Every structure is written in structure tokens, then in C-alpha cells.
């Protein structure tokens, strides 16, 4: 019994290390100021990296704004699109449903490189490249499958009985949705929202291909730092990206209070 407990503690410690140490490394780098090649610890500490990042020169703040704007718009649009689609797949039986289910999964299966390289020419023709709108449009199909799957399973579990109950209590269609259905969708909205926001937020390739380097999101900004460049700045930027993601999650869960927040949807 005691051995088992020790083993447990050791495994826990190892997991914690594997998760936390990388963050610590980033934190240490971001506050370092001169770190000789072969030294284990920085020679000097300072805020050089951070003060650069928060200056307009680094474009970090504007990238946070751009990234948030894009991902937030994508998330809201995708939720609005995937709630009805989820209802169709969760509640109704119709011809061609199997085909639709496969189409809806396609963006999870077919790599974004294929689609991005294919669609770029169309976006160029309609002047959508280098624009926010273009980036938002190309992110949408990537995040939709998550939302549709989540809302389909919410609707499947809930059925239309609540809607009918509201209907016999004289609720008009929009009232049925607003007062009877929506509360049941809150947990789904949280998990779909967080998932879709983060998928869009961490998207590099499509943003780069359609945004053409003109639309500066955080991943675009970080990309060159991964294998070259100033590690101090790179570390700070990496931490900021994670911080924004976490902040979004916390805010969403605060805004939409729901009795059961534990959900079973994850993404890669």
C-alpha cells in the first residue's frame, strides 16, 4: 500500500514536471538578459524582452487584437451555424443524413494544406487574400465540425420534448429556442466555443496562405522564432499566446454559467 502511494506520487511528479518545466523554461528565458552559450543559468535578468514585446515595434499587441478579433468572429459565426446544423443531425431523420455526416467530418480528416493550396486561387480571384474576411472565411470550415458534433450530441440527448413542452405552453418558435432549448445548450456552447476559438487561434498555415503575411496573428508572429531569432522575445510571445487562450477559457466559463461544465470534447 505504501509502495503504491509512493509510486503514485512519483508518477504525479513526473507528469507535473513534463507539463510545467517547459513553461518554466519559457518564463526563465523571457526574463533573461544575456545568457552565455554554455551556462546553465542566465547571467543577468531583465525586462528587455517584455518591454520590446509591449512596444508597438514588436506588433504583439496589435497581433493579439487581430488574433482575438478573427478567432472571436469565427467562433461566434461557427456557433450560429452549427447549432441549427447540430439540431438537424441530432433530431431529424432524413435522406442523405449519412452523407452529410461524412461531409461534416471531412475538415477533420483532409489536411488543411491540401484545401488551403486549392482554395487560395479562388480567394485571390475574389480579392479575399490579405483580408480579415478571407482569413475568417477560411477558418470557418476548419472549426465547424467541432461545433456541429458537439451540438448534434446535445440535441440528440435532449430531443425535441422540451421544445414541445414549451410549445404547448404557448411559446412561439423563437421563444421555444430562447427559453427552452438554449439553456440546455450552454455546456455545449462553452466547450464548442473554447474548442473552436483555440483551433482558430492556433491556426498558422491557412492564416499565412490567405492572409499573405499581411494579416498578423500571433502564430504568424511566433512562427519564425521557433527555429531562429531572439529567444527572449520568442519566450515572451509563447507565454502571451498561452495566456490569451487561458484567459478566453476562463472568461467564457465565467460568462456562461452552467451546472455541468465537464465535457468530453477535445481537439488536437
Amino acid at each position, binding site marked *: 500500500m505504501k509502495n503504491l502511494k509512493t509510486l503514485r506520487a512519483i508518477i504525479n511528479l513526473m507528469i507535473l514536471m513534463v507539463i510545467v518545466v517547459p513553461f518554466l523554461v519559457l518564463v526563465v528565458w523571457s526574463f533573461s538578459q544575456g545568457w552565455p552559450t554554455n551556462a546553465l543559468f542566465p547571467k543577468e535578468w531583465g525586462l528587455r524582452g517584455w518591454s520590446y514585446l509591449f512596444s508597438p515595434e514588436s506588433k504583439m499587441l496589435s497581433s493579439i487584437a487581430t488574433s482575438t478579433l478573427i478567432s472571436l468572429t469565427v467562433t461566434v459565426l461557427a456557433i450560429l451555424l452549427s447549432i441549427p446544423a447540430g439540431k438537424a443531425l441530432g433530431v431529424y431523420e432524413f435522406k442523405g443524413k449519412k452523407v452529410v455526416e461524412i461531409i461534416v467530418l471531412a475538415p477533420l480528416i483532409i489536411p488543411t494544406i491540401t484545401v488551403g493550396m486549392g482554395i487560395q486561387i479562388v480567394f485571390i480571384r475574389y480579392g479575399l487574400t490579405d483580408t480579415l474576411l478571407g482569413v475568417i472565411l477560411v477558418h470557418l470550415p476548419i472549426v465547424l465540425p467541432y461545433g456541429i458534433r458537439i451540438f448534434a450530441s446535445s440535441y440528440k440527448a435532449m430531443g425535441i*420534448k*422540451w421544445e*414541445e*413542452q*414549451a*410549445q*404547448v*405552453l*404557448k*411559446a*412561439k418558435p423563437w*421563444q421555444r429556442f430562447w*427559453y*427552452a432549448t438554449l*439553456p440546455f445548450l450552454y455546456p455545449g456552447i462553452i466547450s464548442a466555443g473554447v474548442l473552436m476559438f483555440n483551433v482558430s487561434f492556433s491556426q498558422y498555415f491557412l492564416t499565412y496562405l490567405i492572409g499573405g503575411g499581411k494579416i498578423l496573428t500571433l502564430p504568424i508572429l511566433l512562427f519564425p522564432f521557433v527555429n531562429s531569432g531572439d529567444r527572449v522575445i520568442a519566450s515572451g510571445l509563447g507565454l502571451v499566446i498561452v495566456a490569451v487562450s487561458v484567459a478566453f477559457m476562463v472568461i467564457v466559463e465565467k460568462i456562461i454559467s452552467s451546472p455541468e461544465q465537464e465535457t468530453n470534447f477535445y481537439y488536437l
Partner: protein
Amino acid sequence: MPKIILKEMTKAYEGNPAIARVSLEIEDGELLALVGHSGCGKTTLLRLISGLTAADQGHIWIDGVEVTGQKAEERDVVMVFQENLLFPHLTVAENIAFGLKMQKVPRKKRTEKTKEMLELMQLPNLGKRYPAELSGGQQQRVALARALALEPKVLLLDEPLSNLDPKLRDELRELILRLHRELQMTTVLVTHDRDEAMMMADRIAVLYYGKLLQVDQPVNIYRYPAAREVASLFGQCNFIPGLLKDGEFQTEDYRFTVPALKRGGRVEACIRSEHIKIARPQEDRPTGVILEKKYLGGQGILKIGVGNLIFVARGNNYFDLDIGNQVSLDIDWSQVSFTKGDHFPGDQTSCG
């Protein structure tokens, strides 16, 4: 004028008829029970009245106004579902006021009405609780209160008691009856429990595979079933084919004198098990051997083989008899009903 008139209502799901040409008139202030085996179309019929389901064919009038094309939210009808479906995110008071809120009734009036309903349902002080904090019986009361708060012309109840345990069921049954008497509301109750129907209903409508077999007062349904299916739905029946002729009912082996009857010809006698008395073997009566003996409540149930027929008899004083005993049957012919000899031509289609 009847409160609800259904004319030739028909509804099929994926080609399978659930309700077939049902015509029915429900009187003002009446409590009508819709009875039938599971899948016979009871709930579908209720949904057609509520407007949740649109009929394929037929018409429906409520209070003299045709509502065939109206949606559920436009009809002055409220339905209480089998699962009480209280909104879990709303308090009891908010649940009760839900329908009024949907109709944009001012808040003050809603609050008053809610309070009134809580008192009517004997649920004072529970308004601030959430449904999950109530017992099953309380939840069902709140569901009723929520429906009644709208003061509908017609109340539809879909097996409202079936999820409750027996004691609560009795309580709630009395409550529904009391409310029905006090509010004089036209009520349609779906149930598969014949005792519940017998106890509660002013009239009973019997559905069989989507068709209406009989609509009548409970006592008539019991005593004069229109079809074999109705008879067997309301108690155990011995069906004996024979010929009605000259004041006699003739089977292959026996002739019985029966009370004067309007019709004759080939019929089927429906002899309820409780109307057969057991007597010592007698020459002029059907005589046979006891094959099986069971107990139900305070009664004994006997299976008796007579020739090639098997009778089931039920009574209080059959405990002393044993399997193998020779007995004669004493049938109370004044209680026996006759139905047409051929079976009711019900389609053997399944429904809902």
C-alpha cells in the same frame, strides 16, 4: 355543443397508420379517457388534439372553431406530458409562470397567478425551489399547475400518473378529479391502466390499432363491450362462439336460456370470469374438470376444461376446490354480452 369535435382524423408515420379515420366528440367539461394497449395511437391522438402533430387528413374543431391548421401554441389547449418536463433551469414559480410569460402577461399578474396555483396544488412555499429539489409527486403537481396556470379550455394529460408509485398515484388521481370538478375543464386523459380509466373518466374511448372501437360511459364499456378487444381490455373474458336464436344461446354441446336480445345469428358470448359461479356437477350445465388454480388478491382463479373449451372463473369462495375436481358452471347470463361472431376487422399493422 361539444367542446372538441374530431372528424375523420388520420395520421400515418412512414406509411404506417397510427390513427385511422377517427371521429370523436368530447363534451364540454367532460373527462374523457383514451384507453388502449401500448402503440395503439392514444398518444398520437392526444398530440393531434394538441396541435403538436399535424393530421394527414381530417378536421378538428375546438369550441366551435375549426383549428385543424393551427399550431399547438395557437390552440387553447395545454398538454401535460408523461415525464413532467419541468424546466430544470427555472424555479418552480418560474416554471408555473412560463406559459404566461410566453404570452407576455404582465409580471404582477404572473406572480399572482403563480401564487394561486401553488395554493391550489397544495404546494405553498415551494416557489423558490428548483424542480430537482422536489419529490416525484410534487414535480407532477407543478407540471399540472404550469398547465392550469394558462386556464386552457382543454387539458390534455398523457399518462400523468404512470411514473409515480401507487400511493402517490392515488393521491394525485384524487387531486386531478377534484380540480376537474372545481374548474369544470374539458379533460382528455391518456392511460393504459383500465382501472384508472374506470375510476376517473366520465366516458372512455377505446382505441385499437389506430381505430376507435367504442366510446361510452365506463359501466357500458364494461357491460356492453362493442367488440371482443374492448371486452378483453376491461377484464378477463371467456369468449364462446355460438348461435343466438329464439331466446337461446346455442353452442355445440349446450343450450342456454338468455334474457331477451335484439339481435340474433352467429355471435360470440363474452362471459366475464367473475360472472361464472362454480357448482356441484349437474347434468344440464356445462361440467368439467379444474385444470389450474391461482390466487389474486382475495380471489381464486380457476381454469376449467369443459369439452374442448377452457373457462376461467373467478370468485371469493373457490379456495377449497382442488385441481382435478369435477364442477359445473353457473353462468349469470344477465351479465353476458354478445359481440359479432367474426373478429373486429382491425388491420394487423403496427403503430407508433
